[in-house]
């Protein structure tokens, strides 16, 4: 069973979202997602300063097997990207909710955060997808 922390929000495309303050969120991929994708070998993080829309593909994780798009959970401006992933893409496998975070967004419209799932909702969503 994969780990689903209770203090995070989740998307249907298996990103997690940590709300840092009213307008800043950190994004990564869930434990369930990293396990399904396999060993990570390259992470293409978004450019800092880029404007993204909700559900827009803005990063790519490449595992030994395949490349997968990472979608922005909300619209806003990319303000930070995890530079350590260049040398340690395996952080996404080892600590998906910690050192394996991918980017941070300054959220445009905080109402968009309301549309995300909570841990319970995401767990049910994963169970349904199986």
């Amino acid at each position, binding site marked *: 069973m994969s780990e689903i922390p209770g203090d995070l929000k989740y998307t249907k495309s298996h990103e997690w979202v940590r709300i840092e303050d009213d307008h800043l969120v950190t994004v990564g991929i869930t434990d369930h997602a990293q396990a399904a994708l*396999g060993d990570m*070998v*390259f992470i293409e993080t978004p450019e800092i300063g880029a404007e993204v829309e909700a559900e827009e593909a803005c990063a790519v994780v490449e595992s*030994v*097997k395949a*490349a997968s798009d990472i979608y922005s959970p909300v619209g806003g401006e990319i303000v930070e990207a995890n530079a350590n992933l260049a040398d340690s893409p395996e952080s996404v496998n080892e600590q998906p909710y910690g050192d394996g975070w991918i980017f941070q967004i300054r959220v445009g419209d905080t109402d968009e955060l309301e549309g995300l799932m909570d841990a319970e909702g995401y767990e049910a969503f994963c169970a349904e997808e199986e």
Partner: protein
Amino acid sequence: MTKLTVLNQAHRDAGGKMVDFAGWDMPLHYGSQKDEHHIVRQDAGMFDVSHMTVIDFRGEAVQPFLRRLLANDIAKLKTTGKALYSCMLQEDGGVIDDLIIYYIDEQHYRMVVNAGTTEKDVAWIESQLDDGVEIAVRKDLAMVAIQGPNARDKAMQAMPEQARTIASELKIFVGAFYGEWFIARTGYTGEDGFEIMVPEGEAAAFWDALLEAGVKPCGLGARDTLRLEAGMNLYGLDMDETTSPLESGLGWTIAWEPAERNFIGRDALERQKADGVKMRFTGVLLEDRGVMRCHQKVITAEGEGELTSGGFSPTLNRSIGFARIPKGDSKTCEIEIRNKRLQALIVKPPFARNGQSCIDI
């Protein structure tokens, strides 16, 4: 209907992540594809390759038949058990499949073909069959490949005593029978080891004995990165019916001599050679960060080509691939990945074999 090898339960017991491969339910990995790759380069891993097909050819006319059927020449095989790698071609020179054939005796040869191509291979062989040749598709055999620097030692521990003696004496690229077993010192990883055919009923016990001897199960994912590092082609990606061996880095497998041997596809290949082969097949090593994948565009000074295989090399910690590009002397190229052009070097495979990198980075 998904097909299961006789080792399916063993894969599930070992935590295999199962995927569909050419209609077979096979393990992609058992936890970490990268770890499995390193185990084969550094120690000993095993692969269930029972989905591949063994075909026995028997009869008094078997030699002339196989000399016509295959682009490589089985007349090169003079000692019992010796193996030969060959392509089987269409009349137009397109590759139907690549295969290994073993010389058992003058009236018996054993062939191993790919899983995904089995039906068309058998149909083609039957359509070409001569009097005095009979084939038997050996669905009753399972096959396990044990590969790595410690593979032979560990695999021998798992064998019955007599089999151990036979296995210990095998030279590279030679196989031998032990009763119904066939033990061959061959593989698809660039490491030493065995490929062993056993009757289906004995496969699970042999697999367990190998586990006991410390051989780690490895999935199809590692098998792909290992063969890519070792510079070995994969049918369906690197060559198929639309490409000839001359455009696929497989010119070395065509036996042109003796000139009077008229194998299927010979006329087409000779015409292609006379006209000049327009494309070359080569290895590529990505200099920038990223991962090359098959079908991505390759840009060279001589024009555009395509990656036929691509992936991440755990040994080199870089992305490697094979490409079919216009003939020329270019030493570098660009790879188009998600609308960006990344720098790559054109290099001669293999990238890694026998636990070592073969490329200076």
